[in-house]
């Protein structure tokens, strides 16, 4: 836990360093007052200061407060990584269309992670993909993306 928090503090310090350096390249002050670089510079500096204070606090704390592991069990980590991967993978929506993307996404979550039965999985996945697509398209006037591949588009996906 302590190690992770220290690492986080270092990340925040790095972030503030980056912001400050980028802000120096911007106009700091104009005729009428603060320029585009004014707030980023000072916010970056404050962030840096706060992070350093936090880091010092972390080092001062006794090792007693080292309450266990930061990361969950291996299984939990895998589960989290898989969910994130699935979320990021929905970016293929613009290529294979909303319906197919959402169907695969739901099947993955329900079947692989939720361990639902085949029928539960299929019925929920269909409602959330094909059902939502048509509901939004017809009644709610929200056009969800169709596939940009003509082969899939021809199938109505």
């Amino acid at each position, binding site marked *: 836990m302590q190690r992770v928090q220290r690492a986080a503090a270092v990340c925040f310090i790095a972030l503030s360093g980056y912001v400050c350096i980028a802000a120096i390249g911007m106009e700091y002050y104009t005729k009428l007052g603060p320029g585009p670089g004014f707030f*980023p510079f000072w916010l970056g500096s404050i962030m840096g200061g706060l992070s350093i204070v936090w880091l010092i606090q972390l080092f001062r704390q006794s090792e007693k407060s080292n309450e266990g592991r930061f990361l969950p069990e291996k299984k939990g980590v895998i589960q989290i990584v898989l969910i994130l991967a699935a979320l990021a993978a929905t970016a293929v929506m613009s290529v294979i269309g909303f319906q197919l993307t959402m169907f695969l996404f739901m099947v993955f979550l329900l079947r692989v992670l939720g361990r639902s039965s085949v029928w539960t999985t299929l019925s929920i996945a269909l409602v*959330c993909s094909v059902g939502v697509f048509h509901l939004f398209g017809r009644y709610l006037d929200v056009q969800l993306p169709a596939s940009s591949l003509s082969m899939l588009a021809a199938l109505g996906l």
Partner: protein
Amino acid sequence: MDAFSNLMMGFSVALLPQHLMLAFVGSLLGTLIGVLPGIGPAAGTAMLIPLTFSMGPTGAIILLTALFYGTQYGGTITSVLLNVPGEAASAITCLDGYAMAKQGRAGVALSMAAIGSFIGGTFAALCLVLAAGPLTRLALQFGPVEFFTLVLLGISLLMGLAGKSMIKALMMGVFGLLLAMIGMDPVRGLPRFTFGTMELMDGISFVPVIMGLFGVGEILLNAEKPFAQMVLAKMSTLIPNRQEMRDSLGPVVRGSLIGTLLGLVPGMTNSASSFLSYIAEKKSSNYPERFGTGMLAGVVGPETANNAHANGALIPLFTLGIPASPTVAIIMGAFMMHGLIPGPLLFKDHPGIAWGVIASFYIGNVMLVILNLPLIGIWVKLLKIPYGILSAIILSFTVLGAYSINNSVFDVLVMTLFGVIGYLLRKMDFPLAPAVLTLILGPMMESSLRTSLEMSQGSFGIFLESPVAVVFLVLTAVILIAPSFSFFRKKKQSLAAGEEDLL
């Protein structure tokens, strides 16, 4: 025209069948979102915005506001029966609510909380009706100068009430402000921190950020362990006895006042209201030591307060166009998507919409009491659905919501990224609310400062010319300096001792 006849006109709009229907749907979905742990009002409202694209503005806003205050009712059910907060503002209710449930008094806790919520919500809505006229007149005097100083006050309050870990709250506040720097700057209109992407030119859109931090982050946290079935406490009779009703009177009155007043201040969240109300109940009780063991006041007070807050937070939005909390900012976004700008002109140019929505608050609150009392069994059943299935459905709706705000896959990726950030920050006990609030207030702060200086051609004296601005500046100074005096420090410790997450 006085407030009363305006309100009657509003009722004639709100009572149209389609608007009644939408108020009902909003209340229903709001309760649902409140009941479900892992998805709060902000992420829930954001998810449903695409649903409203095809509706007229009145219907859309009625739906979204009903959903917003509806979540405050639903959250109670989960807190009392599961000892898991359905949403953040009901977290404090767990303490005495679950204790009551274990004693077999869950029904009384829920029914009194629902009645308290109703009174709190309607009280705040009444304040909105009475305040609308005077405040909208005042609003014309409310220019960029006053706006800047008010935002400054809001941000300083956020910092001043940071609670247990001051440093972490401050870091999050600054983190949100840094995120707010992304996009075209208000001074020159040049891209800043956009990393060469067009998508970031308008700034990072906060709907995906909120859904990531709160919705996805929460689900990731729950995904650490295999999804387990949760243990529900038994329900019991809903009808309180005379003593219990008498005990609830004080908490309801105090909760209504606390919630409505805190709702007016930018940067205050519903959680702050329910927390402060809990403290107030504990202080005014004859048996403070019994809190945590099933005191009815510890349930009714906070639940009344967070509902009053939800409706109260809409007062600055409607009258001044200021979003006081993340969810209200999302509702403001919905106004704009429908071509309306909340603020004084709304009452003038679209009285039917403004008063129709306000009237719908009363209707919605009545519907919510009905949904929450006789129909409570349905919500209890809902909690029996395996969390694996629920979280999958919630995730699919966050993807849908993030995508359809701008029809852009980029926003889905932003949401995923902030899901990771939210998960990690939560694990390290960082409060997330300050970051989101400053992300919303940050751009307003910078652009209103710029606009003020454009008006004065560079002279900071303009901030001292307006009496309203001077009042806000003095208050800001007091809040920032006060902690160094011992009297306030002592008070703060007692605040911090109560519960960790004030924000």
